[in-house]
């Protein structure tokens, strides 16, 4: 069994190590964490309880040994059945950007364009490597409106660390000043700078 020795480490380092190990461990498998810091022990056990993760603690000579069991998928499923939130995975960012020039994807039938755009943004969320920024201009700004069907998805993408820039002139033009509640309002200079310094620009 893998053992993570956090003795001598100050908080929150032991918790960080525990969390990393929990992510790396396969479901159904166990690992041990050693700590000699009571505060860290309390924080780790609170974290495990909050995340419904099974564990046992043994103490000897001022060192606590936690044995942590990563639950199987079915067990977690049971607990999260009624949960409605989307899990926000831990991902990395790259220096490519996405430019939304319209609220529709491609040219052709508008209804199809809307549908494709929804699928596109949902797919961005699942990318292994996220864009560093997403810029929205012309009718693209409508995607970020609080009544857009994509609002929640964009909100999550922002929480994942992607910067969302909305062209302020466009937001004003479409009278969306009160409805853009995510990202930041940006000017043409910043948009040009963002696009000019990106390694790649993806346009849906």
């Amino acid at each position, binding site marked *: 069994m893998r053992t993570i020795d956090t003795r001598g480490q100050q908080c929150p380092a032991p918790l960080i190590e525990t969390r990393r190990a929990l992510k790396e461990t396969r479901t159904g498998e166990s690992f041990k964490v050693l700590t000699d810091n009571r505060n860290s022990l309390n924080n780790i056990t609170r974290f495990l309880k909050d995340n419904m993760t099974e564990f046992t603690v043994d103490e000897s000579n001022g060192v606590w040994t936690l044995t942590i069991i990563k639950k199987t998928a079915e067990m977690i499923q049971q607990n999260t059945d009624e949960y*409605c*939130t989307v899990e926000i995975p831990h991902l990395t960012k790259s220096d490519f950007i996405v430019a939304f020039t319209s609220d529709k994807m491609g040219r052709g039938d508008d209804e199809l364009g809307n549908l494709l755009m929804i699928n596109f943004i949902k797919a961005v969320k699942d990318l292994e490597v996220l864009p560093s920024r997403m810029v929205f201009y012309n009718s693209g700004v409508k995607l970020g409106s609080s009544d857009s069907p994509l609002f929640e998805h964009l909100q999550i993408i922002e*929480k994942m660390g992607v910067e969302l820039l909305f062209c302020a002139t466009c937001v004003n033009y479409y009278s969306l000043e009160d409805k853009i509640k995510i990202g930041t309002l940006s000017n043409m200079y910043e948009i040009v700078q963002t696009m000019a310094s990106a390694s790649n620009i993806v346009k849906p």
Partner: protein
Amino acid sequence: MVEAGGCSAKIPPKQLEEILRMIPVPEDPDILVGTETHDDAGVYRISNDLAMVVTTDFFPPVCSDPYEFGQIAAANAISDVYAMGGTPVIALNIVMFPAARLPIEVYSDILRGGSDKAAEAGVKIIGGHTIDDFPPKYGLAVVGYVHPEKIITNAGARPGDTLILTKPLGMGIILAGQRLGLTDHDEVSEVKKYMMLLNKNGAEIMKKHGILCATDITGFGLAGHVLKMAKASGVSLHLNMALVPLIGNAYRLADQGCLPGVSFRNLEFADPDTQFANGLDYNLKMIAFDAQTSGGLLMCVPENKTESVLSDLHKAGLPDSAVIGNVSEKVDKYLMISN
């Protein structure tokens, strides 16, 4: 300079509450705000149209640059006067400094930082007190004034109000991440920028719109301060963590488990009075308890004023200001957190 936890260097809230309960404040009709509502500052009436706002705050370094530390500590101490609707005027330096262990320039840089930030707030530092101690600590005792009928307290939240927060969260997490080498330089500069930012403009906008209820967010975290407000006002406050602006990679750091111990103590304090929504994202939950140093103002704004207050805040150099929740009649728990 050694860095420590800023406002996270507080005594655990649960313990503090127990101790303060044993030391009653003397009866005096001129004490307009005392300790019982756990507000940001004390308010004492001098005459029918004048009351004093008094407060103090000091802590060990939160960053390695002494000049910046001085500014942060001063901005943080003065903030309590702003949160009460007061105008800060004078202050005293409170310093603990190990003269034998650190160069004396560090001492003067801290004081210079404090003095420059005080000047920006229109506050005159007219004295102070230093003792020898390690690690260094710095802060101010601040005096301000307010009209007794225009005090902004944490006890005035009314059902239907919206909650507006003026600075993003994540200071504690990022500072902890910095100590472990998990953050980049830009992110730390961003945190320092927010910590040095006075709550002056936010306070002026509150006065302009006649806001009655606010607090500043510091060591007990957003949820801790919001809970104190809910209890003092006898209502329930609802926080939607999905709407709360975050600094830099605070979410990613929280997801890695970079959660300072003080967050767990804050959580323990609030736990009995809080209902966490089913499926609440764990990282956002812990961010709600992240101790802030010199955090933003949280104000209760009548719904019909929300838009104009928000737009004024955005124009006044507080572009991160956002509606993050609302107030209802007291339900089962004082604090409801969802996302």
